[in-house]
């Protein structure tokens, strides 16, 4: 009998080690969106500000845009806020907001304090539109292409390296 066969269990063991090692490097909280490359869901949300504009599916066509799901009660949203301001002011990226389960007056106060990077903001009072987008926590950020398809989803607060490594390069590429 060839002796090599004795090494089969060891080889299998190595394969399993590799398999689990890869699995452990992945962040279990970062789920891929089921909606990647799908058109944005059908929705229409009322505005947060009295004289502002709400957000609807039709607004998300005709250019590469960012949709940021936020809430005034969400601490990580405050952390990423300066980056959204930078994206809007310095990089000229169009950002729309969905205020997830947030009272409009709270959202307004939040934006008055920290500045408003959003062009349009829809108030998702009961979180139902969040479910349409597959949102499971705030903040989440989506990149929508000119045809109104979701091309990227970022879960959790945006960090500077996310902007430089993923968000901005993808926006530039989609804008070509």
């Amino acid at each position: 009998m060839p002796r090599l066969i004795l090494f089969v269990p060891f080889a299998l063991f190595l394969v399993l080690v590799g398999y689990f090692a890869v699995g452990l490097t992945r962040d279990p909280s970062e789920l891929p969106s089921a909606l990647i490359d799908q058109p944005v869901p059908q929705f229409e949300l009322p505005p947060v500000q009295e004289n502002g504009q709400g957000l609807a599916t039709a607004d998300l066509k005709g250019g590469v845009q960012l949709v940021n799901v936020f809430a005034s009660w969400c601490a990580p949203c405050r952390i990423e806020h300066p980056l959204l301001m930078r994206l809007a002011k310095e990089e000229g990226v169009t950002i729309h907001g969905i205020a997830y389960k947030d009272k409009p007056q709270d959202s307004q106060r939040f934006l008055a304090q920290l500045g408003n990077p959003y062009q349009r903001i829809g108030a998702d009072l009961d979180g139902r539109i969040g479910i349409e987008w597959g949102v499971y926590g705030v903040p989440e950020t989506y990149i929508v292409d000119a045809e109104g398809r979701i091309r990227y989803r970022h879960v959790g607060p945006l960090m500077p390296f996310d902007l430089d490594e993923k968000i901005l390069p993808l926006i530039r590429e989609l804008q070509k």
Partner: protein
Amino acid sequence: MKRLIPLLLALTLAAPALAVMPDERLADPALEARAREISKELRCLVCQNQSIDDSNAPLARDLRVLVRERLTAGDSNEEALDYIHARYGDFVLLRPPVKPETWALWFGPAVVLVLAGAGSAFYLHRRRREVETTAAAPLTADEERRLEAMMAGGDDENNRGHAGNTGDTARL
């Protein structure tokens, strides 16, 4: 015994803690039962090792309410489940679908079991054959002599020599 009965009663009568709030429940018991069944299939995305039926997270509640709304609107169980699956992906299903990425998950244990079974069967078969062949062979003249010496008792020196060199016939 007197103390045991209340304990047993407490253990058997204790209802599991439910996350489903009274205000979420549907009036129709059949629909409600179907809703519970679907809820148990759906993973809570916030506290990832619970079903939405077990979870107190607000999103789990929203999804439970959504499932009940869809059932009330006339969805089948399948349709209601698909609605959520389409938005949250495979991850939301506690029973993942069978497809190439999940083959390892579905068939891995069976494959390992079969391999282990085949390995053990092979090993046992070989061992039995070894035992049979050695048992069947008659003793050689040399072995015959050693056996006789052992049965007769032999002297101390010889015994000591055997203890360390059982296979060494030259010392006999």
